[in-house]
């Protein structure tokens, strides 16, 4: 191929790129000021996401369609750009290149037709209108390209190697052998490509820039640990879009509204008004409004409130289960925005659903969610010879290998107290030197934090951290995944870095090292419910499964949605203390799904899940209600 560009063409190309550049710069200006200086990118994740479409392929059909369209654009574009430099390549590789080019075009054509058909079938408000223009442009590009190639082949004849462009040959059957037609098609092709390039910032296609950027700057470290607002400087969560961070705004820009978050969101599925997709879209729309307003009014004095467009029912429906984050192919996190909005409601406006107020008040006064008080915190261990670290003769790290952090549920809820006793029994059977904080323990702060009361979270966390330091704690084992997440992933920001493991991880280790043996059968068929804060938050999927397999005579049956796709019990994110008035109850939805496995024992690893599922299963009023038990209970039972 030779360079075919005239100076006019060069001018048009430059124009297209200038238009694109200006458009991108204008979008970029929306969030540029907020970009933190030392933010690190992630090349590996970017490559996996862009080149291999990791995440997008979770939906196989549309994922493959997108993959085809992506490579169908990327390969020919690359080849054509390279071709402008006028290489002379031997015939064999050139033919191979032509074949690849031809197949890539076919992939684009098939992919884009599939996406178009799929779009037209949908009745979503925002779908067709936004994506139609780019899709039609791509369609024009593909067809005109083939028609041009076909016309060229009709004029020149198929030559000695028709295999090198099979689809082009197909089109040559219908394309007239006229040079004028070929030139027209080439022009059309060329213009459509430039139009598409110029249109990137102004249409749906800007996701081609913003989404990879978002993946590149995806959050490092613990996956969904919340970050601290600087309360001292008066930051009290998100009142308007101005209070959101750079990454949070980039999230909104990167969203293509594919709806994967919605598909997995327990709130949406159970009929609540919340949709993570809508939250993100609202933020983007408000950012765009700010831009147009900013020009007219000069400053951002009259920014629209986030709460105007995200209602209280939506904001408080989130169970913080992280399903939206897990399933977003471009690393968008709707959850932290929802928490930020809650923070503003609670700390800025002092507004909180009234049913959750007594719980926060109990946390403030008594330091636990049930308001029973620190004096009763070790009641579950009464007369059971569980050592309390502060009351031993020589309090300090020397005598104790691991601190058992019981948590409010394990200490006070009658059903979860059994789990605490089971854990103490296991640790004793394994001969581990452990202790509890007893009355010196207080809530880890998770319920307050998820409900938006950051100040209270800090107070509780500091109280705990002081105790950990006082007794020189090295390793902590928690019974509750919420405590695990808070202690392991969120305390480091407050300067407390300790080794924190969940009880299931520790027990798995004990079983593997044969320090305990499970002797007695407890059930024929066990199924497992994955706790969000254990699985998605901390990637602990295997230990509960290993434990169930170690139980003699038990078969493990997986539920339909498990591990990464696990469905929330409805108790996280403070929902445990809020009423569920709209739609179905999430725990009942989950209970129906679990009981479909016909298991006679439902294992879980979280006190909230245990209580929620127990309620859910009982409300189904089945002939034979399966038992719900913590995995730790199961182990203790099997120990004999």
């Amino acid at each position, binding site marked *: 191929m030779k360079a075919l560009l005239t100076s006019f063409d060069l001018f048009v190309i430059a124009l297209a790129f200038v238009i694109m550049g200006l458009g991108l710069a204008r979008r970029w200006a929306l969030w540029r000021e907020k970009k933190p200086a030392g933010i690190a990118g992630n090349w590996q994740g970017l490559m996996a996401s862009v080149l291999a479409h990791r995440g997008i392929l979770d939906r196989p059909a549309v994922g493959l369609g997108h993959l085809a369209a992506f490579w169908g654009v990327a390969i020919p574009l690359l080849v054509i750009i390279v071709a402008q430099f006028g290489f002379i390549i031997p015939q064999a590789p050139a033919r191979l290149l032509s074949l690849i080019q031809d197949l890539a075009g076919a992939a684009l054509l098939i992919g884009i037709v599939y996406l178009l058909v799929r779009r037209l079938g949908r009745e979503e408000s925002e779908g067709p209108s936004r994506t139609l223009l780019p899709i039609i442009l791509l369609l024009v590009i593909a067809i005109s390209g083939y028609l041009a190639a076909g016309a060229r082949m009709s004029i020149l004849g198929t030559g000695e190697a028709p295999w090198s462009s099979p689809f082009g040959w197909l089109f040559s059957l219908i394309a007239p052998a006229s040079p004028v037609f070929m030139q027209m098609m080439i022009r059309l092709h060329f213009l459509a490509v430039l139009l598409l390039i110029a249109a990137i910032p102004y249409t749906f296609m800007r996701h081609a820039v913003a989404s990879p950027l978002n993946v590149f700057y995806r959050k490092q470290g613990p996956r969904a640990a919340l970050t601290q607002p600087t*309360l001292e400087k*008066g930051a*009290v969560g998100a009142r308007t879009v101005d209070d959101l961070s750079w990454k949070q705004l980039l999230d909104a820009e990167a969203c293509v509204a594919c709806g994967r978050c919605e598909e997995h969101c327990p709130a949406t599925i159970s009929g609540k008004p919340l949709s993570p997709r809508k939250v993100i879209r609202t933020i983007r729309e408000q950012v765009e409004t700010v831009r147009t307003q900013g020009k007219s009014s000069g400053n951002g004095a009259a920014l629209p409130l986030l709460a105007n467009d995200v209602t209280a029912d939506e904001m408080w429906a989130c169970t913080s289960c992280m399903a939206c984050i897990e399933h977003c192919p471009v690393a968008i996190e709707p959850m932290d925005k929802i928490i930020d909005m809650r923070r503003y409601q*609670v*700390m*800025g*406006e*002092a*507004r*909180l659903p*009234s049913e959750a*107020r007594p719980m*926060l*008040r109990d946390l*403030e*006064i*008594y330091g636990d969610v049930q308001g029973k*008080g*620190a*004096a*009763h915190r070790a009641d579950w261990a009464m007369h059971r010879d569980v050592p309390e670290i502060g009351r031993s003769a020589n309090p300090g790290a020397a005598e104790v290998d691991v601190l058992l952090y019981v948590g409010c549920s394990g200490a006070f809820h*009658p059903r979860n107290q059994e789990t605490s006793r089971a854990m103490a029994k296991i640790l004793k059977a394994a001969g581990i030197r452990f202790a509890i904080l007893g*009355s*010196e323990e207080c809530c880890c702060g998770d319920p307050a934090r998820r409900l938006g009361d950051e*100040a209270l979270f800090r107070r509780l966390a500091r109280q705990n951290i002081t105790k950990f330091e006082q007794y020189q704690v090295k390793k902590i084992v928690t019974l509750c995944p919420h405590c695990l997440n808070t202690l392991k992933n969120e305390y480091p920001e407050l300067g407390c870095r300790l080794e924190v493991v969940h009880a299931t991880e520790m027990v798995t280790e004990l079983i593997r090292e044969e320090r305990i043996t499970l002797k007695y059968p407890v059930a024929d068929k066990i199924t497992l419910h994955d706790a969000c804060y254990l699985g998605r938050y901390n990637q602990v999927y295997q230990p509960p499964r290993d434990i169930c397999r170690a139980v003699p005579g038990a078969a493990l049956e997986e539920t339909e949605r498990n591990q990464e796709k696990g469905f929330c019990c409805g108790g996280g994110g403070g929902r445990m203390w809020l009423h569920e008035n709209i739609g179905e109850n999430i725990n009942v939805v989950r209970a129906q799904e679990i009981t479909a496995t016909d298991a006679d024992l439902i294992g879980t690893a979280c006190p909230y899940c245990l209580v929620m599922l127990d309620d859910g299963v009982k409300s189904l*009023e089945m002939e034979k209600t399966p038992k719900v038990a913590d995995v730790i209970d199961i182990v203790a039972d099997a120990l004999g």
Partner: protein
Amino acid sequence: MHIIVCAKQIRHTYARTGTSPDTHYIEDWDGVYRVNPHDEAALELALRVKDDHAGITVSLLTMGPMIAEHELRRCLATGADNLYQIDGNNAPDTAQEPIDQPDPWEKSDRLARAVKSLNGDLVLCGKESLDKGNGQVGALLAHRLARPFVSAITDLGLATSDGQVQVQRSAGRGVREIIACQLPAVFSVDLGVDLRLPNLKRRQWADEYPPRPVEGNGESAPPRIVCKHRFQPRPRPKLIPAPDSRQHAYDRIMQLLTGSTVEKKGEMLTGSPDSQVEGILAFLKTNGFLESDRSDE
């Protein structure tokens, strides 16, 4: 208009986990320091009046050392304008034991002098305190100030024109009274109103706020009554119903140990009304509540 809300800082002892009889088996961690909940309700009523009318100042008035400082500042953050402290300096800094507290006569004297020096038009206080439960201070305060007194109010409305207020009081057993009263007055407040939350900005302001001392002039009144002894309740024996004999021995022992109640298993009747009626009849007959057909013959 100046509303003064009396807020008592108390140590609320809710448990007895200690081992020493000298301390009445009470340890440090058996109590929490907080503001008397009735006084919090009083503050809420005052703040509601402040929300509805302009030109109203709400001041908190506390007595003695700041034993529940965090909670008191939280009250301040919910919307009060000032925080006054009586005897902040010469009181001992240790925890205020209920037995060592001044008697209601003495307390009301100090409070009355403080209210006079602050020019309070309306004084609200809690119906009683959680640690002492005397319920006298409000009435005695009204007596000393020679003002009308309404006890146990649950709602407070301010008429804008003639300085008259309308209050709702609970007369017990769910009976309510609406009472009209001329200002200045003293009311004591019962629980029941939903409390508000403070926002963070107010909290940060309240944390920095220095309590303003008020000193009553002259000697305070001598105590009229003296509390000689204070007995803690004996722990009540826990009543445990006999476990269900249908259950396993292990479960029965566990029930006795944990002191949980016996779960009674019910049976849900479904189907048409007729079959449900039959079900109920069958149940009554098998359990001997109804004589079966056979005995009729």
